[in-house]
């Protein structure tokens, strides 16, 4: 329904406004995902169970929230429950006037909301009535107060580890995406507001994958895309129906290059989670920078400055003439994006302290010292992948959600002037 609403609204918007409005629209839409109608059925069920024990008459009602329900939902459910109880002839009165007291505890287990009602009548042991319903989760909103801000827009979620997501169309509202995991590339198309599987392309590999598996989807000119995985390279067929042909390979992976610098590739260790450090053709004469997790290019007038997030915890900077290593409060994953904000490009970096879920922050690098230009965008889990979007104007972040263990892919965009 959210997608349908967007399709209607976008017709009336100038092209230039669409992207900003889409961001706002999606954020606001998802905030209101849980509506009163979601709770009315279980509220009705519980009211019936209560009425089945007490019969019509005067009851006192107390409600207690021991679940992750937000206050607005707790209030909404409480209101619905009272309405349903009234419709069954139960009148809410003060405890001293009540024939029965009803205490409802809104609780939960890993899969369900569990609403437990204890009904006391006289001195008898309480009667317990239970209603359960599947849990669902809200999408949070990020508040900020810096010159720029980061926005995350959910793209896809699944149980298996997402390695990369590629948006296959030019539309600012994704209609066609490819999702890479360890076993397949799944292509989805948006139809009537719902994602539908268009094709599943299996990935064949002889060796077991290493832990902390990483992979990269790269759109190609003469075919749909290439897939880089540890020790494996896959390529889609040129003709339809689409096939994915995989082979064992130690070919270097293309390193993301938003700066338009000379293309650079890095060799990836087939049984580990890092690049070996060997580069081709190299940054100037530099062909080995030591093991690193990720690399980004930052534009300069006549050259590009490369930043490598090293396995040793340092960030190595190389511009073809000089090299330098520095300790920054950054994590393992970096990506650079080209935007209309600030100096026109920003580096997005994970934070080193990931004890309470990872975060992303935007930086600009005037000389060699990065300056934060946004507040941290928090995620409810660890960031397991961070790659640039196809057009380098946003990033794709994959997060392993802490509580559910599900993987969620987000498009992260830099928003100017806030």
């Amino acid at each position, binding site marked *: 329904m959210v997608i349908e609403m967007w399709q209607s609204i976008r017709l009336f918007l100038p092209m230039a406004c669409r992207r900003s409005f889409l961001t706002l629209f999606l954020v606001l839409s998802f905030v209101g995902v849980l509506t009163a109608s979601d709770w009315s059925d279980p509220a009705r069920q519980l009211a019936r169970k209560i009425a089945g024990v007490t019969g019509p008459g005067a009851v006192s009602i107390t409600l*207690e929230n*021991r*679940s992750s329900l937000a206050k607005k939902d707790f209030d909404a459910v409480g209101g619905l429950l009272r309405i349903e109880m009234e419709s069954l002839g139960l009148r809410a009165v003060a405890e001293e006037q009540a024939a029965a007291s009803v205490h409802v*505890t809104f*609780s*939960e*287990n*890993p*899969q*369900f*909301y*569990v609403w*437990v009602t*204890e009904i006391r009548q006289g001195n008898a042991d309480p009667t*317990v009535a*239970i*209603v*359960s319903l599947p849990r669902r989760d809200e999408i949070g909103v990020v508040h900020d107060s810096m010159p720029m801000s980061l926005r995350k827009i959910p793209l896809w979620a699944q149980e298996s580890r997402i390695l990369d997501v590629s948006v296959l169309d030019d539309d600012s509202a994704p209609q066609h995406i490819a999702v890479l995991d360890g076993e397949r590339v799944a292509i989805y198309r948006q139809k009537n507001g719902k994602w539908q599987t268009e094709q599943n392309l299996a990935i064949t590999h002889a060796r*077991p*994958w*290493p*832990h*902390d*598996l990483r992979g990269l989807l790269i759109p190609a000119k003469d075919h749909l895309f290439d897939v880089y995985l540890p020790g494996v390279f896959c390529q889609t067929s040129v003709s339809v129906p689409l096939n994915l042909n995989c082979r064992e390979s130690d070919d270097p992976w293309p390193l993301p290059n938003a700066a338009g610098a000379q293309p650079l590739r890095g060799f990836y260790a087939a*049984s*580990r*989670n*890092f690049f070996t450090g060997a580069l081709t053709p190299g940054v100037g004469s530099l062909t080995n920078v030591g093991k690193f*997790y990720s690399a980004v290019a930052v534009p300069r007038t006549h050259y590009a400055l490369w930043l490598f*997030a*090293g*396995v*040793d*915890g*340092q960030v190595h900077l190389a511009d073809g003439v000089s090299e330098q290593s520095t*300790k*920054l*409060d*950054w*994590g*393992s*994953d970096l990506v650079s994006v080209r935007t209309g904000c600030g100096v026109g490009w920003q580096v997005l970096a*994970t*934070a*080193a*302290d*990931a004890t309470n879920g*990872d975060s992303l922050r935007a930086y600009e690098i005037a000389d060699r010292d990065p300056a934060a230009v946004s507040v941290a965008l928090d995620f409810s889990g*660890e*960031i397991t992948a961070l790659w640039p979007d196809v057009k380098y104007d946003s990033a794709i972040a994959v997060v392993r959600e802490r509580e*559910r*263990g599900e993987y969620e892919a987000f498009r992260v965009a830099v928003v100017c002037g806030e």
Partner: protein
Amino acid sequence: MKRFVWLWFAASSLALAGQVSTAETRPQYGGTLRIAIREEITSLDPGDSAQSDSVARRNVFGLIFETLVTVDDRGRVHPALATRWQAEPGNQRWQFEIRRGVKFHDGSELTPEVAAAALRASNPAWRVLAQGDFVVVECERADSELPAELALTHNSIARKNNGAKDGVAKISGTGPFRIETWQPGKYLTLAAEENHWRGRAFVDSIDIQMGKNFREQALELEGDKADVVEVAPEQVQRVIMAGQHVSSSQPVELLALVFADEPRNTDDKTIRSALAHSIERRSMRTVLLQGSGVPVASLLPNWMTGYGSAFSTDVELKRAREERTQVHDAPVLTVGYDANDSLARTLVERVALNAQDAGLTLRPLASTNTDLRLMRIPLASPDPWVSLENEAEVLDLAVPQTTGDSVEDLFAAEQALLAKQRVIPLLYLPTDWALSPAVGDWSVGADGSWRLDEVSMGKDRP
């Protein structure tokens, strides 16, 4: 002295935290993880029922052995050594397709025949056979929870080589770590299996020292001789206040008073009810456990069911006294505890004091031959049905048959078990671990299970 140890932790951990403040967030390969535990594991046979069940034992076995399936924190079953499974109508006969290309640490291949033999050995009541790529399990009765049961440690797939002279070579698993050295009850060294089917673990090896009490473990951590140690529940708050990194599971171990027999008559039932109503669980938690654990009157913890509030943990002394007066000659009840378990002794003494307030006489004894005893019962699985069935088995009770598997059905089954008055639940305790700053990406499952193939060691220690 204890105070000194933990204060020293605070200082040392702050210093080390400073050294790793710019650590990368992706895990690193290499290094040795050193763990100390109290448990003295004397057999590495997962099917050996002579050893008592514990979270620590399960964790050690989970490094070496694997099961056909696993259960996640939400109780959902996932493929492991079996890639898929299905039940025939009636849920009595199940087929599991065995993963191809998996090897035991001795180099032999995992086959349906070997998997079937392992399951037959640990489940004599089942008919287990190999058919093509499948293992077929036929239960005595319909069992919709069979996949989750197969994730239990005693259903690990182990290959036994009875001809081997070396104790290490006698048993082999398919897990992420293989046995390097093994001194029963004392020491176990494991090495990462390079070609594990889920990928090689990050650390090169794991050293496990056994039979270390809490104090010895604290000293091991303090002296940089261990990276991961257990923390006594009553010490957790103090350790956290001292700045140490403590990792805790959900409450996974039930402490309960278990009667030796079913109640013989109405008086017996009334006395048991009076005892249950007299117990002050909340003060046990706040005073004796220093805020650790959760008071419970249910067999399963609230995080797993959501309906824990339906079982009141309030002390009802007036009601207990009234019940006591209904019985003319209340017997003196002996209540047993494990002599090596200081917490159990303290709790039992507190129960005896509470009972005294209600006019009951309980005599604590460090013995198992008593009218009732304090037991520790670890949750068997993140699957609530499997855990309830296991608890019923420990209590020597039959699980009530239900028509469905909803939360409401689970509540009804648990209520029926408690109505038999064989057990008085007291508290649920989590498992708590103190970690050195070198340990990265540590996490435990809701059931206290280690995920050590995901752990990496920081670069500040080789």
